[in-house]
């Protein structure tokens, strides 16, 4: 069996859904941030797969850019998490109730 475009797309969909369900289900914000990384990763897989399939390098360029963005996003997310932990001693999303109606 040769691995073709479809396989990559199925893989990407699976990774995307794993990430999305992680965001929706898990309450620990660290895990949520990791799930978000999975969602970004799914987009990257699709880009890389199509880029190879179409013979067009702009998808690869996109993946490189999106790596940088994901890294910056993780850095900022973790920095905020550290602050939150310093203030509350918890990173559980259910504890974030200061701002509710």
């Amino acid at each position, binding site marked *: 069996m040769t691995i073709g475009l479809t396989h990559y797309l199925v893989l990407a969909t699976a990774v995307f859904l794993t990430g999305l369900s992680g965001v929706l289900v898990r309450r620990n914000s660290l895990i949520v941030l990791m799930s978000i990384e999975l969602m970004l990763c799914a987009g*990257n897989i699709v*880009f890389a797969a199509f880029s190879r399939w179409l013979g067009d390098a*702009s998808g690869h360029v996109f993946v490189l850019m999106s790596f940088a*963005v994901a890294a910056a*996003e993780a850095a900022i997310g973790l920095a*905020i998490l550290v602050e939150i932990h310093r203030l509350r001693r918890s990173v559980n999303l259910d504890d*974030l109730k200061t701002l509710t109606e």
Partner: protein
Amino acid sequence: MFETLALNAPSWSDLRHFVPETVLVVTFLLALMADLFARGRRPAGPFALALGGCLVALAAAVSSLPAGPRSILGDLVVVDGLAGFFRVLFPLIGAITILFSWASGEIMGPRREHKGEFYALVALMAFGMCVMASAADLIMLYLSVELVSLTSYVMAGYMRTSLRSTEASLKYVIFGSVSSGVMLYGLSLLFGLTGETTFVEIRAALLAGRADNFALLVAMVFVLAGLGYKIAAVPFHFWCPDVYEGAPTPVTALFSVGPKAAGFALMIRFFYTTLLSPGGGQAAAGAAAPDGVIVGPADWPLLIAILSVVTMTYGNLVALRQTNVKRLLAYSSIAHVGYLLMGFLMLTAAGLEAILFYLLVYAIMNLGAFLFVIALNNRLGGEEISDYAGLSTRAPWVALMMMVFLLSLTGLPPTAGFIGKMYLFAEVINRHWFWLAVVGALNSVVSLFYYMKIAKAMYFTPGERAPLRLEPLHTAVLILLAAPTLALGVYWTPFKNFVDRAVAGFAGLGG
């Protein structure tokens, strides 16, 4: 393995058409460095640099009009009428934000190291928003949205020792990154379906019928989710009230106008360029022609109409029971996005003109309302409606100016908000979307109730009687914003002409 890339190679000379943006980036870097040497309670260096930079960018943007249309930086960015309009608007918003942050206790309060960073971030955000308004390629779309988002996360959590501010920031990061993840997935599908990354080439590919309809629908809805989050349209609005309430008020003021306007700019450019066929665009630019032909499987105008109705109704109804003014204004800003979306789905030049004019007016009046909240927070230490009791005797002029902003936000004459709404509704009725116009009008009536709750507290609820003196800088900027809110309600022709020229120069419509 790959074909040779046929790119319009970027060159240094492209920067001639990218002056306002370049100025803002340089300003950001200089202000950041100046902050390292800032001494004393207030960082005068970064403040002056950022303010000066925004003003220079503003001057450069004005002097570059009428802009393009010109494709620069390897076709990643297009400078046209639409971009020209927004790069005047964003440095202006940045400059106003910088001005009123200077005297704000939340930003410049005690125990905050590196206060100057804030001003640098405002300049960076203005840059990101300018690029959002001129992005012509999926890569630039994604990068500019992320640049604005990342800056926003940091600014929302600027009061590091505040529970509310950090919580707002974390919620923003999570909602923001999820939507950007969804959007990235949508963009990747779009790239796969069309094999192109430039908006114009995507349209060509779609017109050639290269894309599968269902997959295209999924991709476009995913991209809409990412952009819908940026403008805080229901159902992508969950972050909005919490972030607006928790973030420092000057930041909230900036969020409520800047990224929203930038999101609209990008939505207009992206959807009008990719989904509107060129013939349809030309037909739409002519007055009597029917709606432009839409590429793709869905009834996009109806979809957006539903989004618009849900957004404005939800925003207005929830705003009714708010007691915190920041939160109230957050929901009201969601409602305003609903009104703006009405113009978006008209697919006509007149609809776009109405959107741009409304964005201009909305920026002025909403910044004004938030500045009022900031100025009083400095003195009263709170932003509940009940805090404003008896304000008409304590600070009559300030209460009167807030009254102007509130009337304008409701859309009553003789204010700028009335004219803005008039153009929006006129186009909606012109295009025979009568039910939409009725829902919009009913919503405006609902909004009157909660805006007048603030007015009632100021004018009819007895409170303290001691006169209240605001920071002179705040009063000055308030006057600077209240004057155009009134003046534009009486004499708006030059600004309407300015907006009309911007839309006429928009490369997506009729070009």
